[in-house]
Structure formats: C-alpha cells, structure tokens
C-alpha cells in the first residue's frame, strides 16, 4: 500500500527531506519504523530503537501498534518542545 511519511525538526534534517511517498508492506507504525531503519543509514540512526521518537498516524499521536491503511499519513518527529 501507498502511504505518505512526514518528518519534522531534527529527524527531518537527518532524513534530508520533509516527506516522501512510500510503498510499504508494514502493517503498523512500529513495523514501518523497522522498515525505514533497515532501509538507510540516516533512518537507522535517527529512528533507532531506544531513541525518543514520537509518531503520528493521520495527524493524531500514535503508538507502535497503530494499524496502517492505504493512503495513510504517518509522521516521525522528536519529543515536542512548543509553548
């Protein structure tokens, strides 16, 4: 299925892009994270297990178990620091 992945802040800088469209077989946010970690060095570093990475699915905070669907918008970003 096709999904859009967006990156923000330090993760956006490390990935070298703010968004990309991916064809993925991942079923959950956690699986997608693993797929990206296995794909390239930049992702392996910034999305690595043990690093504080927050995720959103269709613009709502999501956890590793959140289920992906075709056309989903996923985002990876560091802990938020607004206010």
């Amino acid at each position, binding site marked *: 299925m096709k999904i859009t992945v*967006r990156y*923000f*802040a*330090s993760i*956006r800088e490390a990935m070298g892009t703010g968004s990309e469209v991916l064809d993925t077989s991942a079923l959950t946010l956690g699986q997608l994270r693993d797929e990206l970690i296995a794909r390239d060095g930049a992702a392996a570093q910034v999305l690595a297990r043990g690093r*504080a990475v*927050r995720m*959103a699915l269709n*613009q*709502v*905070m999501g956890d590793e178990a959140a289920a992906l669907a075709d056309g989903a918008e996923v*985002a990876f*970003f*560091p*802990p*938020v*620091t*607004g*206010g």
Partner: protein
Amino acid sequence: MSHPRVSIQTHDFDLSAEVARLRAADKRVGAVCSFVGTVRDRNGGADPSVQSMELEHYPGMTEKSIEAMIDEAHKRFDIFGARVVHRVGLLQPLDQIVLVAVTSAHRGESFQACEFLMDYLKTQAPFWKKEQTPQGAHWVDARVSDDAALLRWGISGSNAS
C-alpha cells in the same frame, strides 16, 4: 459570528484584543485567565546565549491537537470559552510566543483550565524549537518536568522520556 479558537501564526498577537474578543460582551463571564509565554535569552543556565529561535510545527496536526485539547478542557472544567494563539517561524528574545486565555463564571475554573491547556500543549502539540547561539544552532530538548506537569491532570503522555 464565532471566532476561531486556535491560531497558528507568524505575526504577533495583542493580549487585550484577544481577551476582548473571547469575552465577546458575554455577561455571564466573571473571570478571565490568560497566560502569555515569551522567548527568553537563555535556556536553563544564567548565560544569555540565545540569540533567536526558530519554531517549526506540523501544519494540520497542530491545529487538530489543540482543538482536541480545548474540547477536553471544556469537559473537565466549567468554562465558557478558550483561545490559543501560538507563533511559529523566527522569534527573538522578548517576543511573545504563546497565548492561552480562558473565560468562566468564577476564577477557579479558568485558572485551572488555563494551566491544563498549557501543560497539555507543552507535551502534546507538535511544535519544535531550534535555538541560535554563538556556538551554533541546536534543537531544544524536551523536559521531563513538563511530562510531570501533565501527569498532575491524570494524563500520562510521556513526551520527553
């Protein structure tokens, strides 16, 4: 005519004008509580090293998440209205960065709702600060103390840890 509850903007805001609009000549209102966050020239230490600050956000999710926070505040507290303004882009020390304002019949509810909204916003709204210092630019770290602040309201939203 109703005004938007949430604005994400690069330009400054006027506290008096925002409060007047929120009160909207509503004669039930007996309390207005507002919080304004401003950009400091330091982070943590006493050294005034922050020259400027760049604020990034997630357009769409930012507005949605804050709208949801205001809905939650209405469920928890007996308030009439709430308004959140958050600036993004390049900001300088002394600049206003965030406004939360709440109206209610009596002070307790608006004080609480205002603090609740700020605690929620600090840990759940997708904003990121990047500070410019003489040593270069760096992303600001999230604070565990902000997670603890949210926990007071019975919400465990682990952001920093």
